[in-house]
């Protein structure tokens, strides 16, 4: 479904993503992990067209999408969330999602957009009431809204940038269960970004690890979590992550 080859992103002299290649098969959940600042969100920005790549190819459903404008990539069937939620505060919750349902599906029709919005909101567990405002949402609610917007665009591939910081343990489990449900019920292929391994390892089919913009490992969760390079990277970062590695291996 997605074939990425030699993806590069430079910011001035700094290379944030360095020759990353990977494939995503239809129906899978691919976990993308790596320490802070390793380039995960940047990869998402390249895939969704928010930033143009410096080099490399991105084939989605057999079609080259590298460097296309974001609205075209979204309409081709890619949906994305932002790590830090970016709701539109001048619109109600419902309008936020209806907007995505309309403009993310080739402006097909208002009815279809509203239907998509209602389904997406129900899916993530937000009220479908037309007037509820964004201001009433907490951190978890804003993440749900972010997800609802992405789903409402009717994606075949969902890029979920879910650094679950700011959520407690049960909220994290809920979020993980949610992604699984989105894949199982809507048949959406998912790339899930995270920097803590624990929760992610339970849900994903495959994991890819990046560090300093380079891919250092890829494989099944248990293989990756016992990979010495991965352990080194995580040992080198923070204690919490180390624990997560240990947990995942158990």
């Amino acid at each position, binding site marked *: 479904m997605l074939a990425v080859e030699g993806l590069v992103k430079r910011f001035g002299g700094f290379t944030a993503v360095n020759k990353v290649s990977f494939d995503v098969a239809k129906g899978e959940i691919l976990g993308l992990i790596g320490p802070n600042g390793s380039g995960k969100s940047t990869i998402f920005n390249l895939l969704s067209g*928010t930033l143009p790549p410096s080099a490399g190819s991105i084939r989605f459903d057999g079609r080259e999408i590298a460097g296309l404008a*974001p609205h075209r990539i979204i309409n081709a069937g890619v949906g994305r969330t932002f790590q830090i939620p970016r709701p539109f505060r001048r619109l109600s919750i419902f309008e936020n999602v209806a907007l995505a349902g309309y403009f993310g599906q080739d402006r097909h029709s208002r009815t279809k957009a509203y239907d998509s919005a209602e389904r997406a909101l129900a899916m993530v567990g937000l009220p479908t009431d037309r007037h509820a405002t964004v201001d009433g949402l907490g951190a978890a609610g804003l993440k749900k809204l972010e997800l609802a917007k992405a789903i409402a665009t009717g994606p075949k591939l969902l890029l979920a940038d879910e650094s679950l910081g700011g959520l407690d343990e049960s909220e994290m489990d809920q979020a993980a269960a949610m992604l699984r449900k989105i894949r199982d019920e809507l048949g959406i292929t998912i790339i899930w970004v995270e920097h803590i391994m624990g929760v992610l390892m339970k849900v994903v089919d495959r994991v890819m690890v990046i560090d300093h913009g380079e891919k250092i490992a890829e494989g099944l969760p248990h293989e990756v979590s016992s990979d010495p390079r991965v352990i080194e990277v995580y040992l080198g970062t923070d204690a919490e992550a180390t624990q997560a590695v240990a947990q995942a291996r158990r």
Partner: protein
Amino acid sequence: MEGPTTRSMAGWAVGALVLIALPFVWSDPYPLHIMIQILIWSFAYTSWSIMGRFGLVSLGHGGFMGVGAYVTALLWNHLGITPWIGIPVSLVCAGVLALVVAYPCFRFRITGHYFALVTLALSGIVLQVITASRDLTGGSLGFSPKMMPADSIFALQFRDKTTWYLIALAMWAVGLLIWRKVDRSMDRYALEAVSEDEDAAAAVGVNVTVEKLKITVISALMTAFAGALYCQYQLFITPDTVSGISVSLQMVFAAVVGGVYVALGPTVGAVITILLAETLRIGFGTKAVGWDNLIYGVLLVLFIVFLPKGILGSTLDWLRLRRRRG
């Protein structure tokens, strides 16, 4: 989205009837003249706020108005082309001008203050071009469309103020309808989103550049139309009354004072500005020339800081709050 209740429908119908009947009951030329001015300028301010409400603050609308007025009048005087064709041609010119200025701005993400500055240059340039093409336009002395010996539909010239009042009223009503149409469209959601966060809007599929261009062109066409009709009514225009930075600022001021988020806000703004200008003119005569611009400037800053929703917007908010409490 509230559907029209019978009561509000009846309210609108009565309002429309009163406005239509007005010149037949009360036909003093002076108040009628003021009413016509208010209606034409209301339409122009509504045109501005159709994009201004989305944070697209243009200081170039004087330019569009000038193009509408001068292109129509020049075609008539120099080529004998009826305004019925001249006005559409002038609209096309204004639309092209809007695209030429706005496309690079939007493509390269020139927003906020920078957008305002680029459009400010547009006002200045149109004014300069009109003033400098003295042989064609009469320069700063002004320009009069050639008068027909009698009223003429072909030349769109009427001596009778009642006719003009009805034309201006229709135009104003159409302006409100366009405002409402935009307000209820999905494009409004897109533009609200774009005004907050362009990347996030693009990430839900909005073609940011196209959405901004569409609303800019609609706004420019409407403004040019206001210019053309203003010229047909006054039968005399100068570069300073229909173009230039002061006209642009006047639009911003009136729209902001009345309120850009409500349909009738710009109309309230027109009533206030025109009555203010008239009062100064009658009360202080030529001594007060330019005072209105000074007062606008000061009030504009005060409004942006203390009453960003404008007079009508804030009043409606206040009434709504009271009704909920009471």
